[in-house]
């Protein structure tokens, strides 16, 4: 058992190295020269020497393999390097944006479960009834709706409702305030992106809850509980739901990791300065190389670790 867990955990290492290599490779393959873009963005002229000096500063004149070794070695020492784009340490770049994304992701998971678990349970209890059908349509619609469109619809609804209610349009704030300083303002900003992402996630969780519940409800011990005359409410809450939620919780762990990746688009719609803003490549400034590669690697390794952990749990 312990050997199995250790083996699984050790298998994460090559995956992480592979993810790092892939990110590094992708970033080096993107056409364009960061130094040319940086020097040219001021509008002034520059000569070949300035480009070379810039290359030397960023370490881009060294062999590619050595750059990669540096990149990976940095991870192990907790040194994430300096963003080639802004010149600030990558860790501060990420730290400035991470709280927003993390909070939205956590809220989205909460939203998803608040929607998914009761609906999934009801759907399983009333299998093949009109209610079940309606809930299933609702959940497939969640998977089919593009999250950015849902975000736009939310903004539309907020504008229209606030227009009619207060006479002037109101928009959620876009600058981040920590929740302990101004909880209302913080929630006003976070809740709509969280709803957008959460609805989508809830679709998967809901289907999982439903099929797990259906399976559990057919077990012998449920029949025993019914036979001894237990109240239906207790059978469902204590006996059935508790057992059915096991796979749901596993799924939640995997989903949570991927949520942060999925925030890329939602943050764009709501104009939030989250970690997703580091990852997409704004067409005008294609080259945020270093910051992208670190944040991508962050996503990648986070997902890989949680995936292996989940695999370990479910298969052991």
């Amino acid at each position, binding site marked *: 058992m312990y050997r199995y867990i250790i083996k699984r955990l050790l298998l994460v290492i*090559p*995956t992480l190295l*592979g*993810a790092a*290599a*892939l990110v590094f490779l*992708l970033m080096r*393959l*993107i*056409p364009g020269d960061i130094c040319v873009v940086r020097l040219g963005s001021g509008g002034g002229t520059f000569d070949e020497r300035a480009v070379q000096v810039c290359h030397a500063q960023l370490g881009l004149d060294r062999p590619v393999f050595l750059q990669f070794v540096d990149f990976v070695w940095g991870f192990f020492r907790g040194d994430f390097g300096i963003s080639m784009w802004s010149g600030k340490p990558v860790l501060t770049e990420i730290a400035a944006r991470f709280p927003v994304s993390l909070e939205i992701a956590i809220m989205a998971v909460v939203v998803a479960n608040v929607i998914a678990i009761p609906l999934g349970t009801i759907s399983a209890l009333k299998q093949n009834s009109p209610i079940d059908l309606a809930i299933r349509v609702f959940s*497939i*619609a969640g*998977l*089919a*709706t*593009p999250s*950015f*469109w849902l975000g*736009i*619809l939310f*903004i*539309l609804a907020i*504008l*229209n409702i606030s*227009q009619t209610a207060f006479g002037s*349009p109101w928009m959620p704030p876009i600058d981040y305030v920590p929740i302990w300083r101004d909880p209302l303002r913080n929630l006003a900003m976070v809740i709509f992106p969280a709803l957008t992402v959460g609805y989508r996630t809830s679709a998967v969780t809901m289907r999982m809850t439903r*099929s797990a519940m*259906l399976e559990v409800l057919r077990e012998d011990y449920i029949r025993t509980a019914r036979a001894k005359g237990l109240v239906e409410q207790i059978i469902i809450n204590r006996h059935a739901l508790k057992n059915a939620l096991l796979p749901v919780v596993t799924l939640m762990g995997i989903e949570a990791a*991927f949520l942060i*990746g*999925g925030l*890329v*688009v939602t943050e*764009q*719609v709501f104009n939030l300065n989250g970690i997703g803003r580091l*990852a*997409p*490549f704004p*067409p005008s400034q*294609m080259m945020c190389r270093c910051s992208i590669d670190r944040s*991508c690697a962050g*996503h*990648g*390794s986070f*997902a*890989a670790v949680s*995936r292996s952990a989940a695999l370990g749990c479910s298969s052991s």
Partner: protein
Amino acid sequence: MAPYSPTANDFSAMTEAPSWAHWLGTDQFGRDQLSRIIYGARTALIVGFSCAIVASVAGLVLGVGTAYFGGRLDLYLQGVLDVVMAFPLIIMALAVVAIFGTGVHNVIVAITIPLIPRCARVVRSSALSIREVPYIDAARACGFGHSRIILRHMVPNVMAPFLILLTAFVGQAILAEATLSYLGLGVQEPVPAWGLMLQGGAEEYASTAPWIAIFPGLAIALTVFGFSLFGDALRDALDPKLRDR
């Protein structure tokens, strides 16, 4: 079929509300929304089907191949596929677009690459269980070659999960294409695409001309919804274990 040209600007009819002349209204350049949605369907379906077919066939080959031969090849290929899978689909697609550039063909490549391991993994796991079934041993005992065993005995038996994935991928690819186009990194103007219609000015005109934002999104949602329903029905029909659930 479309009443107007999807790219013709008509500055006498900008941001008009839905009417008999323009059923779904016009956008900020006076282009007819209905015509643009009809032409956008072509882009969405081309991208959706080509990504889904290429990705799932590649996944089928990799999945059955690694399951059948096993050993080192299996281990290394699984490692590579795991690495690709560690990235969310849209981030991987963004990275590929950043390298190859935008446009319909590059978008197809960008969406296909992250879909391949997702198919390979499912096909592999069901192929692995088939490999242990006695009739494969029997086929080997008869002296059949690798290709005959793979093509005649293994591939037909993984068809059920394969077809389900194929339909699911069409929807996913359409969604991914719309997302990329919305971010400005997918299909480029003047090719009409649903994601692009949302990018154009949907947010700016949200309060004055909500139809610009609503209809293209509805087109995406309904199309993907249709493919999801089809995939679900297919799963119920093909998988006897799920039939009475």
